[in-house]
């Protein structure tokens, strides 16, 4: 019997013109939690796809319990007991939890009828055994993201998998939910199941994993025992140079009020209640105000209401002394607001346009870029080349690259370049670092702080607690569309924030003020 349940030895996977995995070795011990760390594009996904049978490696071997195996497709992987929780859940929203769990592994009786009762008992037994609370009869579209993830985990357990791959599992969870997940993972490990944990969050690795394998640019950097290392060392391994994990910024010097929001109310598109209910706050020049909260508590609608993407049903918005409550999107932007949107594919970019066309998405109307309605293409080219250079946006063909073909990080950089270059007094930044890796995050954080230091007001909406704590000068916590607390990041703890975010704690006087 081998020491390792899974060994991937000297895996090499090439794509036309590039080596995605170059001689990568990954050994997973039985009963361990093994983290796989690397930036976007380091080859984590490719390696896992090889293990899951989606890609065939050009070189190298995969061993299960010391025996060389050939994994041709995901079915082979499942037969070997390998299961995976994907970053984006693979659930059918209109099916019940139970139906989703048994999908593809249904037990049937005579004539192909489903034996749901047995399946149900098995699922309930599993959920009790591992403390995975789910409502088996609820439809997936009605349950929380945390519960959806538990459904995904139950799917693996239902198939009797004992090698569990978690792909960025904490991206969508609250601090409390993350703790719960960590506990569940430890329970699995104790049971003798082996866990591969793909992430780029160092805190979680330190908290839960036994060993860490680091990849960088398709190459194997090394495997270390978690207890023998620290966050700084890991991030240096991952990025290949010393990284500043802490955000360094001078104390804020708030100036005059830039944005004043009074009693803003935005109706919800999903339910009858207001998504944003009677919210009031002010953002001053030279400060970063952060709206913290669990996803879906009205942050999106709050920003829509502010920027004009959706109509507010009540409230007053004053920007630089001008009432913009009913102004058009363009009017608001011209008054002095730039906006890094939450969803870069939906709002941020016209994906079918070239990079240079995207760079002038608001500016194309300025006399600088047009003459009697005809676009000055050479000016657009010059301007976008400048932005590309200043903000180090990488793409295959420079200004004429189609935005769709760029990597997520560079798409985000392009948006940030465009919005920061507009140089407006107010920057609304919604999850500006979503889905990006350490190096890019460091860069973007520095630019946001720089924006503040130039005397601009920054309204930051973020779901990442670390970002909230590190970047902001003042934190407002939003829960079910209402501001439930205002805290000073220097004086609070993630735990306290978590209590506000989950609605367990509330500052009374804040509610009164808003009345």
């Amino acid at each position, binding site marked *: 019997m081998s020491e390792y349940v899974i060994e991937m030895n000297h895996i090499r996977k090439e794509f036309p013109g590039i080596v995605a995995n170059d001689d990568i070795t990954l050994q997973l011990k039985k009963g361990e939690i093994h983290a796989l760390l690397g930036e976007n594009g380091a080859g984590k996904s490719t390696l896992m796809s090889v293990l899951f049978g989606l890609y065939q490696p050009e070189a190298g071997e995969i061993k299960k319990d010391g025996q060389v195996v050939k994994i041709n497709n995901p079915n082979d992987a499942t037969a070997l007991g390998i299961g995976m929780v994907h970053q984006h859940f693979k659930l059918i929203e209109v099916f019940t939890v139970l139906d989703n769990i048994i999908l593809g592994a249904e037990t049937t009786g005579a004539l192909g009828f489903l034996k749901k009762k047995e399946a149900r008992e098995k699922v309930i037994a599993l959920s009790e055994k591992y403390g995975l609370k789910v409502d088996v009869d609820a439809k997936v579209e009605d349950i929380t993201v945390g519960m959806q993830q538990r459904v995904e985990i139950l799917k693996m357990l239902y198939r009797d998998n004992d090698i569990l791959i978690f792909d960025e599992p904490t991206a969508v969870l609250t601090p409390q939910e993350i703790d719960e997940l960590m506990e569940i993972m430890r329970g699995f490990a104790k049971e003798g199941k082996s866990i591969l944990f793909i992430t780029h969050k160092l805190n979680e690795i330190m908290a839960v994993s036994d060993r860490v394998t680091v990849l960088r640019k398709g190459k194997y950097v090394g495997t270390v025992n978690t207890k023998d290392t620290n966050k700084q060392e890991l991030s240096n391994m991952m990025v290949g140079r010393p990284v500043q994990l802490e955000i360094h910024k001078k104390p804020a010097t708030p100036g005059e009020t830039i944005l004043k929001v009074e009693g803003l109310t935005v109706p919800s598109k999903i339910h009858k209640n207001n998504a944003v209910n009677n919210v009031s706050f002010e953002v001053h020049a030279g400060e970063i105000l952060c709206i913290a909260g669990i996803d879906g508590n009205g942050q999106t609608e709050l920003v829509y209401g502010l920027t004009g993407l959706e109509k507010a049903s009540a409230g007053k918005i004053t920007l630089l002394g001008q009432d913009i409550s009913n102004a058009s999107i363009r009017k608001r932007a011209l008054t002095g607001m730039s906006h890094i949107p939450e969803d870069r594919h939906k709002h941020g970019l016209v994906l079918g346009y070239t990079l240079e066309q995207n760079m002038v998405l608001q500016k194309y109307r300025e006399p600088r870029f047009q003459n009697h309605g005809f676009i000055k293409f050479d000016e657009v080219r010059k301007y976008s080349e400048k932005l590309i250079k200043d903000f180090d946006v990488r793409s295959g063909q420079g200004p004429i*690259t189609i935005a769709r*073909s760029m990597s997520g990080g*560079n798409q985000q950089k392009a948006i940030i370049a465009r919005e920061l270059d507009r140089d407006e007094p107010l920057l609304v930044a919604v999850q500006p670092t979503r889905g990006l890796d350490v190096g890019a995050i*460091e860069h973007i954080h520095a630019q946001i702080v720089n924006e503040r230091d130039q005397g601009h007001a920054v309204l930051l909406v973020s779901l990442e607690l670390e970002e909230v704590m590190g970047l902001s000068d003042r934190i407002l916590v939003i829960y079910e569309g209402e501001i439930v607390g205002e805290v000073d990041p220097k004086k609070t703890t993630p735990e306290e924030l978590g209590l506000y975010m989950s609605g367990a704690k509330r500052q009374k006087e804040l509610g009164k003020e808003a009345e």
Partner: protein
Amino acid sequence: MPRLEPGTGKTKWYRSDGAVAVYSALISILIGMAVGAIIVVVVGLLKSNISPAGIWEGIRLVFLGVFSTGRSGSALSFGFNGVNLGNMLFRATPLIMTGLSVAVAFKTGLFNIGAAGQFLMGTMGTLSVGLWMGWAGVHPFIAWICAFLTGVILGGLWGAIPGLFKAFLNINEVITCIMTNWIAANLVTWWFDSHEIFKNSAEGGKVGYIIPLKNVGVVTPKMLMDVLFKGSQANGGFWIAIIIAIAMWIMMTKTTFGYELRACGSNRHAAKYAGINDKKNIILSMAIAGCLAAAGASLYYLSGNTEFYWSTYQKLPAEGFNGIPVALLAANHPIGVIFSGIFMSMLNISGIQLKYLTAYNEYISDIIIAVIVYLSAFSMLFKTVLSKKLRKGTGGNVNAEPEPVKTEEAVPTEDAEPVPELKTFDEEVREDYKELMGESAEKVQTESEEGGEI
């Protein structure tokens, strides 16, 4: 993505996106013609009155019908046929216009299936105003302008209706277009039915036709077409269509207005985010599409060769729907529409030649058009395959990334990511498919994606 030539940083013209679009359209056309030839052979073998020599004649006419000069002796003769070529351009005119109508709307993300109705409204406006002004003794040139503009404006207003529904109530434009088509058909029928003066009762034996505009002298000038193609129906309307196509191309690609329209079409949300009035652009785009389709009708009925059968409530004009394949074949490029429109009309001429010169009937050309339409839906697929082939051919350096700006320190971000691995949204979806359904799903996904483009 076109391949970058090492060194120059430019794409060779024959590898450019445009060239690939042309290749894929040509593939569709060739396969369509080949299928047509096969049908000619099969029909020839099945029918007793067609000899093997007749089959060969049929095949030659399918490909070269427009150059047919009839028969000399018993054999088919080919050569320059001014009448056929001129008629081809004449018939191409309304097709180019409705093709432009569909293409422009499509660039704004709208599927204008209402060109038939807009065409009818244009017909009504042009004929009514043209005849009325002709009778009133207005100068023919002014009457021509007024008739043309009335038709265009009516069509534009008609096209704006689905646009309004789409913009304010988010009702799918396909549904409202189909409904407005039939409303237009009934409206036009009612209009001419209730106005006896427009009916052509003067020329004996004609029932249900409207008096042609040539009777009042309101006719498009020939603009040299009679010199080039003597004896044909061709007239200056073709030149006007070409000018409009070029104007549309300039509008879509060179102006801020076109930039807004295409932004709305490509991503309505992002356009809105950027402060572009998406509602206004949707309505305008449909109105322009309506104007273009109606202009096709105006040019067609101002030609002096055509008569309008007014009882249209049972049948919509084919020009409206043929605009869709014309636009598809041209990959919605305004200049490409000129060529695909001419090509479609060439097939039409071939069909007529088949009918007159052989024992075949003209419907063979309809089958060829049908096959090409079908295949033009696949032209995106051909495009993808061709782009890949062209790139592979030279083992290219697809990842021709610009030289890193900073060479001192290793660049931190994910830029090291290999370009083929960059997951665009579509690829991500495709990969998700793969994960769910195994490798075989990739092919399915590619195809369904093409379908979605229509």
